[in-house]
């Protein structure tokens, strides 16, 4: 187990480095600089500013500086757009927000998805099953950027129950719509995967044996069927995580929640490279760590898996 974890880490770290170097090369090759504005600065002033930010150094030195700054002190450098803030400040401001509703969306997607899938599989061909299948088919065409306007239309404009945006420190009524918009399509996928996986497991011999020796259904499901059922769901969690963290950009922009997504898009319009890079690297790191966690969990649940 330990050697497995070490080996997975040995892959995760180069992946991370590739991501950092790749985004740095992209940024370096960008035409124009952060200080090329409509009103061009005198060349001497420009040279001074570039020297201050280390932009006059050769490419390899810049990249070494940047990477070592990120790795050793988690320092993404100053923002090119917000005068008084570094990239770290931007992340510190936006990230807790993203983390809050991201966490709840994830919890909702997994718990609701798995329970719906299990319930549908146990009561196959009942109204519950049809409902679950119907929801999971319907939600395929409702990605977050379609869900968000629809929710806003119904709950804010027609019913007037929920505020149409804002954050207010994460009060529950500001949290509901972002969480639903972000989690629905993943909830549906998880339900679908759980359902088909559970159906498959319920047809196996060891479940028949468990039922034959007279165990109550509840115990069969929890003690015997749940573990193999959850494996395919687990391997879906990695892509779901990427999808949600990407979707958070939409949520931030649409509901003005003030998460990193909003900074990301604003920076994309303002060509604030360091913020874009910082967020890209942060998100990439999270994704890679999460995948690592999923892999370890997977290997722990299913000892047959070793790669």
């Amino acid at each position, binding site marked *: 187990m330990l050697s497995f974890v070490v080996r997975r880490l040995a*892959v995760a770290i*180069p*992946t991370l480095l*590739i*991501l950092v170097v*790749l*985004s740095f090369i*992209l*940024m370096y*090759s*960008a*035409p124009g600089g952060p200080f090329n504005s409509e009103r061009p600065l005198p060349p001497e002033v420009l040279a001074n500013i570039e020297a201050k930010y280390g932009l006059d150094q050769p490419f390899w030195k810049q990249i070494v500086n940047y990477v070592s700054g990120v790795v050793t002190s988690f320092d993404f450098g100053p923002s090119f757009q917000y005068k008084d803030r570094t990239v770290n400040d931007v992340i510190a401001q936006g990230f807790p927000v993203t983390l809050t509703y991201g966490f709840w969306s994830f919890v909702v997607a997994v718990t609701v998805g798995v329970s719906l899938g299990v319930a549908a599989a146990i009561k196959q061909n009942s109204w519950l099953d049809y409902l679950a299948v119907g929801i999971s*088919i319907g939600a*395929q*065409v409702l*990605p977050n*950027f*379609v869900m*968000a*306007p629809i929710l*806003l*239309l119904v709950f804010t*404009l027609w019913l007037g129950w929920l505020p149409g945006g804002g954050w207010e420190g994460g009060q529950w009524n500001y949290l509901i719509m972002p969480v639903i918009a972000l989690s629905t399509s993943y909830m549906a996928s998880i339900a679908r995967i759980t359902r088909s996986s559970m159906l498959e497991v319920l047809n196996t011999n060891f479940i028949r044996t468990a039922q034959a020796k007279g165990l109550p259904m509840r115990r069969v499901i929890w003690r015997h069927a749940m573990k193999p059922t959850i494996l395919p769901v687990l391997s879906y969690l*990695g892509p779901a995580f*990427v999808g949600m*963290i*990407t979707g958070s*950009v*939409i949520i931030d*922009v*649409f509901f003005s929640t003030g998460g990193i997504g909003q900074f*990301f*898009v604003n920076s*994309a*319009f303002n*060509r604030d*490279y360091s913020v*874009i*890079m910082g*967020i*890209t690297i942060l*998100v*990439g790191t999270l*994704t*890679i760590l999460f*995948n690592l966690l999923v892999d370890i969990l997977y290997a722990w649940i299913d000892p047959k898996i070793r790669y």
Partner: protein
Amino acid sequence: MFPNRAAVEGVGEAMELAEVKGRSLWADARTRFFRNRAAVVSLIMLMLVAGFALFGGAFAEYENDFVDFSLIGSNAYKGVPSVETGHYFGTDSNGRDLFARTVQGTGISLMVGVVGALVAVIVGTLYGATAGYYGGRVDGLMMRIVDVLMSIPFMFVLILMLVIFGRSIFMLFLGIGLISWLDMARIARGQTLTIKNKEFVEVAVATGVHPVKIILRHIVPNLLGIVIVYATLLVPNMIIFESFISFLGLGVQEPATSLGALINEGSRTMQFGYYWQIAYPLFFFVVTIFAFFFVGDGLRDALDPKDR
């Protein structure tokens, strides 16, 4: 006693009838596909949507970038959908004909989906087949690269690229092409692993056929079924991907538009009651995505019957 002559002829006829033509895999699949009602209806819907995107422009009374200045500011009563004014789907908030824009946006979205799927089919299949066929260390390295690329949140990298190299439809295609083949490579590799141990590949190896030719002539054709299924299922994902970027305003640039951008514009004005501005693009988006998923499911059932 002679057997009844008519009876003998009858047997002969029956034997002739019994010699039915052998049914190919594809003919079988076609029958199965057309028995699936949801898939057939979806296929018809898709054709209608494609027809709308291709020929709808001929029915539009306005160009998609024509601004009707007389309508700006009076959208609520003059920009409503109506046949009389020629704005069948109404106008957007800038007084442009929404019908023409929806036609154009649907076209872009479909094109993005198809291009993404094409890249996936060509690059992904060849990459996966090569990795699977050679196996061993080559396979390990090639698939490790795919794993690494897959664990990068590409939407962010693509937006970074769009910002740096400028937003253009070419960059969008490039970005979509960069990621779309990853899943396909995995699927093609998995399938190749089972195919390469079949007798016909062994024969090809034994008779000294060049590996490149084996992959192209013997392995890739046998991957086609599964590749077609996943390409069909990939198209809606690519459309969603592009719409996502366009929704943020980072994708297709004005005056061109795509369904994602139109949904975004519509969602901003729905609070004033201009529901048609979001309804029509949303309708075409949902129909297209739904239809592709159902056609893909139908194709999977048809080409891969064991997976039911």
